[in-house]
């Protein structure tokens, strides 16, 4: 039984905390004297920290439907709220260090950032297509602004423009798909749509609707062929935002992808513990192919990149491909593998971008060639970068390897051997371009021998990201348990 609006509020504290922080930021912006003061950053940290704490304290079992069935409060949503809040905290740390952003208006930046966070909270919990669409736009629109935040710089403006155009197209296609679903079933509630579709026989419109909705989600997670925007946006956006887009909205995109397809086009099978397709739309094959193509395109195109942000953009496309492997299996273990992978991916990918920021602060360059000799110029940053890159490759004893093991394991367990083989070969390909950065850092002599100082605070943040990357590669039992418990999605 869904809770009413007022009764829901007490289960909505993390979102309220973020909203309150946004409003406070607006006030600071209006009354604040200096546009560059650190106050907005600290205020945002406090707000997101509070939201994270409230999320952690939120009892997720048994699941509840809030606001007359608009959003769900279940283990799945709580997991993604915690994940995206954590990513946002790290991104705030990054933004505080970034030289690109230092002379820009601070309060506005954090207002947009926290709005995206609020959108992600709602997106991962939406159980109604109206709510789903609204929260998706709440994630997208501030993201466009953030991508173009370096006003006056051509690349940043180009990034924002491309992002808007692609985003508008994708969301247009998606809402058309959603309207088809509404037309077919007469309801906006995901669970009811699922039940209605299970009875119906309208295969072609249903398939059309599924594909169209997939376009919208595919765009958010940057899956091929909806990935075109991401390299340009990733390259042009301020680096902290690039890092943010590659982790936060991507994770939220995965959350809604899983929730939407599993509740609308599948239903849990009590006997086997797995899901089964409840309608005649066999989307799993479609997504299996999408997964293989996404990882292959991401990895192959990454090989030729010379700009480190572009390279990491393509690499994050490839990682979306890996994660899609867990999505197509219709099993709780597959989803568990995605959740676990998102956790390790958060640390290793944000870590890699953090080093990019530190280096760019000193060299004003994002060219891989300018990383030459980083191993001697900034050993701490270079070694951390190497750890993140090897983790992204999936080499033990780093966490990325364990993440891949779970994804591979599930694919092999379900007998989709071709996909496992494609992914394995992709891992080898990815080594080639990750190792290229490592080669430049450690094997080449520096063009410029001057030392790059890494102050204590960035060092601490790097440790904060590198230590979990190492530890989760050796002992990951607690995290996998959390992931296993968070698979419990509210189905109604």
């Amino acid at each position, binding site marked *: 039984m869904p809770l009413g609006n007022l009764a829901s509020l007490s289960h909505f504290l993390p979102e309220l905390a973020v909203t309150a922080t946004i409003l406070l930021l607006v006030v600071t912006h209006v009354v604040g004297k200096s546009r560059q003061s650190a106050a907005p950053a600290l205020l945002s940290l406090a707000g997101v920290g509070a939201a994270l704490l409230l999320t952690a304290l939120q009892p997720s079992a048994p699941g509840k439907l809030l606001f007359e069935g608009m959003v769900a409060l279940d283990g799945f949503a709580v997991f993604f709220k915690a994940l995206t809040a954590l990513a946002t905290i790290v991104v705030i740390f990054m933004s505080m260090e970034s030289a690109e952003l230092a002379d820009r208006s601070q309060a506005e930046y954090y207002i947009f950032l926290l709005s995206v966070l609020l959108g992600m909270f709602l997106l991962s919990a939406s159980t109604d297509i109206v709510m789903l669409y609204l929260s998706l736009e709440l994630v997208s629109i501030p993201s466009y602004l953030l991508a173009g935040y370096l006003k006056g710089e051509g690349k940043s403006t180009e990034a924002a423009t491309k992002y808007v155009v692609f985003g508008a197209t994708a969301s247009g296609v998606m809402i058309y798909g959603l309207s088809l679903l509404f037309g077919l079933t007469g309801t906006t509630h995901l669970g009811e749509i699922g039940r209605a579709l299970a009875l119906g026989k309208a295969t072609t419109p249903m398939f059309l609707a599924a594909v169209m909705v997939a376009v919208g989600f595919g765009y958010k997670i940057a899956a091929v062929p909806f990935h075109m925007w991401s390299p340009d946006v990733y390259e042009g956006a301020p680096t902290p935002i690039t890092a943010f887009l590659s982790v936060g909205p991507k994770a939220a995109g995965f959350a809604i992808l899983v929730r939407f397809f599993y509740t609308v086009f599948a239903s849990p099978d009590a006997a086997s513990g797995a899901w089964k397709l409840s309608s005649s739309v066999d989307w799993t094959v479609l997504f299996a192919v999408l997964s293989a193509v996404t990882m292959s395109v991401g990895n192959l195109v990454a090989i030729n990149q010379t700009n480190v942000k572009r390279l990491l953009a393509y690499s994050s496309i490839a990682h979306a491909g890996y994660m899609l492997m867990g999505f197509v299996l219709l099993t709780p273990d597959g989803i568990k593998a995605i959740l676990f992978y998102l956790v390790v991916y958060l640390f290793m990918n944000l870590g890699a971008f953090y080093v990019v920021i530190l280096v760019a602060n000193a060299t004003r360059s994002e060219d891989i060639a300018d990383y030459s000799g980083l191993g001697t110029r900034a050993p701490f940053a270079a070694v951390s970068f190497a750890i993140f890159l090897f983790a992204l490759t999936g080499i033990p*004893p780093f966490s990325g390897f364990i993440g891949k093991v779970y994804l591979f394991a599930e694919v092999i367990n379900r007998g989709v051997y071709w996909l496992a083989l494609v992914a394995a*070969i992709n891992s080898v390909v990815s*080594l080639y371009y990750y190792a290229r950065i490592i080669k430049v850092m450690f094997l080449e002599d520096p063009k410029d021998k001057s030392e790059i100082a890494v102050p204590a605070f960035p060092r601490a943040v790097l440790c904060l990201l590198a230590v979990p990357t190492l530890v989760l590669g050796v002992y990951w039992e607690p995290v996998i348990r959390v992931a296993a418990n968070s698979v419990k999605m509210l189905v109604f």
Partner: protein
Amino acid sequence: MGFIDSHILSLMTFLPLAGGAVILCLPKGNDNLVKIIAAVASFFPIPLAARLWFAFDQTVGGVNVANQFQFVEHYSWIPSINVEYFMGADGISMPMLVLTALISFLAVIGSWEINKQIKGYMALLLLLETGMMGVFASLDFFLFYVFWEVMLLPMYFLIGIWGGPRKEYAAIKFFLYTLLGSVLMLLVILALYFNTTNPETGGHTFNMLHYMTQSVHNAWLKDFDVRILLFLGLFIGFAIKVPLFPFHTWLPDAHVEAPTAISVILAGILLKMGTYGLMRISFPIFPDVTVWFAVPMAILGVINIVYGALCAMAQSDLKKMVAYSSVSHMGFCLLGMAALTPAGMVGASFQMFSHGMITSMLFFLVGVVYDRAHHRDIDGFGGLGAVVPVYTFFVAVAFFASLGLPGFSGFVAEAMVFIGSFPVFRTIVIVAASGIIIVAAFHLWALQRVFLGPLNPKYAQLEEINAREIFCLAPLALLTLYFGVNPMPVLNLMSTSLLKLVDVVKMVI
């Protein structure tokens, strides 16, 4: 001794890592201290290996029976998917553990003159030793895989940073080749995991000894076509490491570019992991496929022997010649194993041990002359015998050991391989025997061009081999000679297990 004895394999594995961690924590500029700590950390495993050897009960086989393994350490690691920390030793792994302890220590001593970023170098070298020990000690497939991959990182950097002119190319080539092999292995591991059950608990398991019990394989895994595919997946992973033709092309590059001590480790220990993996994992898990695949394996072995030797003969770079001679010698291991006879199996294992020592000598010796002359062109020397007699003596010992002269361990190993495999594959062995002649030819020819004939006046003042270098070479030379005359201590160490391995494989025929 209680704690040491009950954790001896872990200590051998992780003491070097601890040493590496200490080195990383030292402040800059303590180069000598770094070297001393590295030497101490890599020395520790030697007395432990000796302890291992003397405490080892040679009458029990191991191979696929858990309670026949010795020095076992068995703990739960990740209970939710049954990953275990499971280490133990039997006659297959014993010689390799001893060899790893010895060669790693000598490699540290052999690196004494390196001054470029010595901290990083020694830390990586010690990490490498941990990886190698771990591979030879693990009985849990997941653990094995982690150690197997952990070796790649230090190796990549050791070749890539401290290597020769084409180090970057060589390092990434090595890395890509081995990673390709290991991801295939990972897929096979996962396929095994999901299609077997632990008979004790009923859950899935990574314990490789359980995989060897054929009754725990499910219907899918009993399908012979599937078994062939899985076997080949593992085989390619191991063949790249050995390296078997046609997967060998990374080896000459890696060897030539790697610094001396790293070539020593590469040839002395890393190559053995391929053949060790076949013995430890592939053969007992897939005995039926092993029998089916024996002839192709023998043919691959012979190609390695003959092709490796021919390539070695064609080289003008001394180090490349030695590298190809390894390709040739590893062919003997494969030939002996493929015969699936007691003599062949023991010969193969003894060849792994013996070649580990001989090839280490050869690479050390190449390093000695390269440090002085700064080139390794075989035709660029001439008449060195008169200038550096002691060095020449050691080269002669190593070359004769390598070409299989009776009295050295290499002869015993190759003779056993031939005795073991001749009754099984007559034609193949006859072809292989012709390889021996080529092996002898290129060794003697190189010896003649470098040390005999008129003296190249450029090298009239060549410095004689120094005490530190002799310290690295002498133990290897003495052991090669000793085990050539009296191979029984090593043969006894491994034969019970290897005979059992032959039985395990043959059981299904």
